[in-house]
């Protein structure tokens, strides 16, 4: 028997959320800046979460930089880059020792993610739409995006996509399945990020795919710990932080 194919591969964001209008050399320049930041993150002696945050930021900035949208260009009405975008899929899974419904409910409360995911500054939720603000470590600002739930089945499945205009263009699905042997709930996460077209996007994926994957993995772990320890309710899980 072979492993079954992924059950609900999240769709690729339907279209680029920003207009691409940055020329190649500008993109390369921005790319270098983003790379430097990420390199810095990876080399820094800060603790792991901070480094992951920094790396994610580098990747985020980089993606933004190379996503090819620039207001200046827009003013000048310049536009390039209309090739097929690359996609980067990140998958992770954790088994959480709690019933599906409870985990689903905790997950559905995106607005509380920042309590455990330190790279998030704020998430606001209104019905099926949400607005996300992520911190750029080192006080370098924030990145934001809007997302919309596209599919939702209580206790089982949650899918979302970012909306046009987002800096971080992604679609994701979380599936909640009962773990065999009464071991709680398997949480299967799959997120697809849209990357810039062509070589630049592929290179970005090669360079930063790893840190994104780790970040997502850490986020899911934090959520697991918060849910199992019942800490979502009261306070962030500082005790789970490394001592300085």
């Amino acid at each position, binding site marked *: 028997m072979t492993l079954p194919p992924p059950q609900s591969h999240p769709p690729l964001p339907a279209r680029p959320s920003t207009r691409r209008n940055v020329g190649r050399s500008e993109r390369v320049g921005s790319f270098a800046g983003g790379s430097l930041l990420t390199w810095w993150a990876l080399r820094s002696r800060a603790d792991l979460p901070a480094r992951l945050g920094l790396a994610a930021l580098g990747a985020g900035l980089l993606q933004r930089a190379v996503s090819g949208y620039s207001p200046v260009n827009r003013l000048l009405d310049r536009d390039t880059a209309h090739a097929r975008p690359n996609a980067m899929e990140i998958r992770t899974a954790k088994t959480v020792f709690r019933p599906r419904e409870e985990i689903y409910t905790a997950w559905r409360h995106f607005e509380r993610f920042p309590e455990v995911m330190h790279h998030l500054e704020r998430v606001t939720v209104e019905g099926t739409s949400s607005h996300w603000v992520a911190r750029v470590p080192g006080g370098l600002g924030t990145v934001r995006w809007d997302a919309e739930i596209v599919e939702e089945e209580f206790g089982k499945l949650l899918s979302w996509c970012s909306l046009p205009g987002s800096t971080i263009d992604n679609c994701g699905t979380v599936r909640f399945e009962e773990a065999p042997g009464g071991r709680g709930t398997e949480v299967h996460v799959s997120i697809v990020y849209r990357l810039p077209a062509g070589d630049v996007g592929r290179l970005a994926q090669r360079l930063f795919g790893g840190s994104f994957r780790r970040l997502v993995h850490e986020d899911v772990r934090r959520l697991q710990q918060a849910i199992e320890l019942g800490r979502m309710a009261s306070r962030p899980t500082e*005790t789970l932080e490394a001592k300085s």
Partner: protein
Amino acid sequence: MRAVCWMGAEDVRVRSVPEPVLQDPRDAIVRVTLTAICGSDLHLYDGCIPTMTRGDILGHEFMGEVVEVGSEIDNLRPGDRVVVPFPIACGHCQFCATERWSLCDNSNPNAAIAEEAWGHAPAGLFGYSHMLGGYDGGQAEYVRVPFADVGPLKVDGELADEQVLFLSDILPTGWQAALNCDIESGHVVAVWGCGPVGLFAIESALLMGAHRVVAIDRVPERLALAREAGALTIDYSERNVFDELREFTGGRGPDGCIDAVGMEAHGFGLLGGYDRVKQATMGQTDRPTALREAIQACGKGGTVSIPGVYGGVVDKLNLGAAFGKGLTLRMGQTHVHRYLPELLDHVRAGRFDATSLISHRVGLEDAPECYRMFRDKQDGCTKVVMKP
């Protein structure tokens, strides 16, 4: 307060550090009344466990008096006398729920580092590197105990500190090592290493009904302690261990083989991946010696139980021998919490001799000297306890 700090390989110092404070409603602060140096600490001392940083407070065998508890702790009160298990466990994850405390999902804040090295992360430990949590250890005047509603065992005043201190680690570790051998009547158990862990494994195996226990070491006073505990001994510097064991068991080989030696000073990198490990072990050809010997000597269908700590990749392990003989290999950090009530009863009933292995009773300030002495097995050093 004063604390024993890791300052680099073969460099531990007693330093003045800030006292711990409650960081979580489930924390407790314990004033340490007695603490010990463990064979596992020697792996840190020798610098073979990565992700230690200068200034880390050492120590995972300790007991003391509760001085402060977080708002969610209702099983402990200031003044309580407690022994604290060395693995930190949350009490709420699937591993804690199934009594596999040293595999707790939620007590290692640096799980990502351990996952990188091992695929999955075990529990955090006191004073045992950042990849295993980065928690301050108990070779100090005070220590913060996370998840204090789960770990600490309350002990009444009848028993002296020295009688109960080893419930924190080496007694349950020797016990689990023997338990993992599934001892049946008639079984012969061989124990490599007559350090504290090996000695408790010997006593445990005999309590569990082993027909005979054979203990292997080369340090005379340790071999003597093993004989006192009821074992027959082999000095591996003089005799061929394999031949002796085969002879003794009528050609069958021991039914249970316990490796209570571990990586010792063997430089297996946890983090650096295979290349670094290979590099680090270059020129150290006989590192997992005890484990290799145990696999070779173990009788068909037998069990090799490994309480000795290993960190990374080992070379030249005869897996074919283990396979061919249908051996069972069992290992891991001890699920200390699981055995505490039972072992406390044994201690009360005097079934374990918990104190005669102590060779040095000192204060914290003697830690640097004692680490070296214990590592080099000098001055008859079999176990060091320190009163802060």
